[in-house]
């Protein structure tokens, strides 16, 4: 019983340890500005990672997630720069994001093509659509109100975008843990054939998974466009493999069936603390990538060692 630490708790401890280490060695890490910085930087990536996690739990993957975000970001920017009110353009942006998700979900469930292929195709497709709309130019011209979403503070303390992220993290956690849909998501991930035979409408559930992922991508797009004051074809494109990495670092099984919001949130925090702290230490960016990769593998090795040890204990008890 001593080793009752779950995967998620270990990650939490690692995040905490990193935080303490950075506080000690990185000058200015603990300053109010820097903490605010990190809180502004985290949500957009966190939301994408959450979306990716939900898809991975079903055993799929969504390679088009960043271009979905970019497409809805670009449409919001287009609407606003043409003078449509903020709320309507946000709504349209979300709807376009959902349409992208629907396209993925539809091809995956109705035609039955494997998710990696579908989303690879739609990734290139969405990128092409954005290019043909924008001709590669970036689009800006947001209202001041809109800029507050990504840059404003809530009650003068916490960045609004952080609140949005926490809100959606909680929503995701509730949806996955407390609803019928959530239970189906896990069941499909661990054995889709068995869940189909036990009467679950798997294609409906999976369709909703892609819709939900694209919804989170659209929300992330709102934060990104507002924060960067622009929308462009490569909006957030560097988050694609990072979000997969964050989901898996957070303990999500890549084959599906397991994954927790808390784990992903911890993983996102670890990436954030590392990236920010190493920047403050003036470590070259290339080395930051090396360290991130090393941490990813190290954490999984720890998990492996832990389960091995746990198994041994259990073996001893039984013998």
């Amino acid at each position, binding site marked *: 019983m001593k080793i009752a630490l779950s995967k998620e708790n270990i990650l939490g401890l690692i995040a905490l340890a990193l935080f303490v280490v950075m506080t000690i060695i990185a000058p200015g890490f603990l300053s109010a500005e820097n903490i605010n910085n990190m809180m502004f930087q985290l949500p957009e990536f966190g939301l994408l990672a959450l979306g990716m996690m939900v898809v991975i739990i079903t055993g799929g993957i969504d*390679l088009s997630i960043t271009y979905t975000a970019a497409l809805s970001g670009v449409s919001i920017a287009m609407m606003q720069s043409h003078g449509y009110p903020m709320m309507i353009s946000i709504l349209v942006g979300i709807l376009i994001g959902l349409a992208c998700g629907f396209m993925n979900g539809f*091809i995956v469930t109705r*035609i*039955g*093509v*494997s998710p*990696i*292929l*579908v989303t*690879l*195709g*739609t*990734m*290139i*497709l*969405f*990128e*092409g*659509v954005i*290019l*043909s709309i924008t*001709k*590669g130019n970036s689009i800006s011209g947001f209202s001041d109100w809109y800029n507050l979403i990504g840059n404003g503070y809530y009650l003068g303390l916490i960045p609004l975008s952080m609140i949005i992220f926490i809100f959606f993290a909680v929503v995701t956690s509730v949806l996955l843990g407390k609803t019928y849909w959530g239970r189906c998501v896990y069941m499909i991930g661990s054995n889709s054939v068995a869940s189909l035979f036990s009467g679950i409408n798997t294609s409906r559930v999976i369709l909703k998974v892609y819709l939900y992922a694209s919804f989170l991508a659209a929300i992330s797009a709102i934060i990104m466009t507002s924060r960067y004051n622009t929308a462009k074809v490569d909006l957030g494109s560097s988050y694609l*493999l990072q979000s*997969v*990495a964050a989901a*898996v*670092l957070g303990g999500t*099984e*890549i*084959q599906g069936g397991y994954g927790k919001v808390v784990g992903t949130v911890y993983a996102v925090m670890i990436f954030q603390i590392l990236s920010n702290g190493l920047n403050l230490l003036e470590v*070259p960016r*290339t*080395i*930051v*990538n*090396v*360290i*991130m*990769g*090393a941490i*990813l*593998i190290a954490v*999984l*090795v720890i998990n*492996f060692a832990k389960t091995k040890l746990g198994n041994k204990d259990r073996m001893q008890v039984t013998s």
Partner: protein
Amino acid sequence: MKSIMKKEASIAVIIIILSIVLSFINPVFLTIDNILDILKGNVVLGILAMGMTLVIITGGIDVSVAAVTTAVCVVIGKLLVMVPDHIGALFLLLVIACLLGIILGGINGFLVSKIEIPAIVVTLGTMSMINGIVLYVTNGQYLNSTDFPKVFLKFSNIKILGVSILIWLFFLIAILTWFLLKHTVMGREILAIGGNKESALRVGINFNKVQIFVFAYMGFLAGIAAIAQISYTKAVDPNGLSGLELSVIAAVVLGGTNIMGGRGTVIGTILGVLLLGIIQNGLILARIDIFWQKVVVGLIILLAVSYDHIQYKRAQAQLSRIEIDS
């Protein structure tokens, strides 16, 4: 057995249709010169796709291929500047490239099999590490052919029967992979594990050994691909291959290899590589508006995979109908 070849057949159909359309739009497409250009331009992709086919058949994936190839390219590039202008040096470099690739691939294989980390995570991690180290060491510095030994440049320009040596190299690798998969014990074990891991284990197949083998083989091919890449571009660009891993995986899966493992053929992968190559080549030949090119590529990929799957479903439905009838 029939339905297995059906997958390859449907991609072949798509390639043929695409080719006919393209040659109507621009007759240049069907010239031998152009076809050789397409082949040569996709040798690196093709070689890597061969290794990836094996990895994916066992149910794994390797997103670090581009990074490994780049790493080997960079090391070989540094050595090329130093070695004497002698044919022996060339062979030595080839051996070093392969060994280096095998080591890097072996590390992936070790982590996947012994530490039981999912392949995508291991290779994501090694990709990020290798890329970081390569960029840190080289600082993105580009190496051009001025300092390369003459014998190397001569090697890359060799043509046999009017066909570049690189294309021959690709066919050699394809035949090797085909032979490995069809006619060796290891090949049968690879297919067995992908098909049904549990029963494969029960028959006494050493799962770890097979996994390490496929990743090491992948690394070996990455080493060869690195040589091909340097011969092709006659330069070493540490950023030149970024993003190639997705194309490699796409080619393999388009070629009918099941991403969950268990099935895949060398022929299918060659067709997948060809399809991607033809799409790329056709974009300019067909004079498609530059901003719409990506839309066209995405649509073709989606159509190809959907068409393939609908065919498959239809075949399945037919099968079950026959069963009921009889």
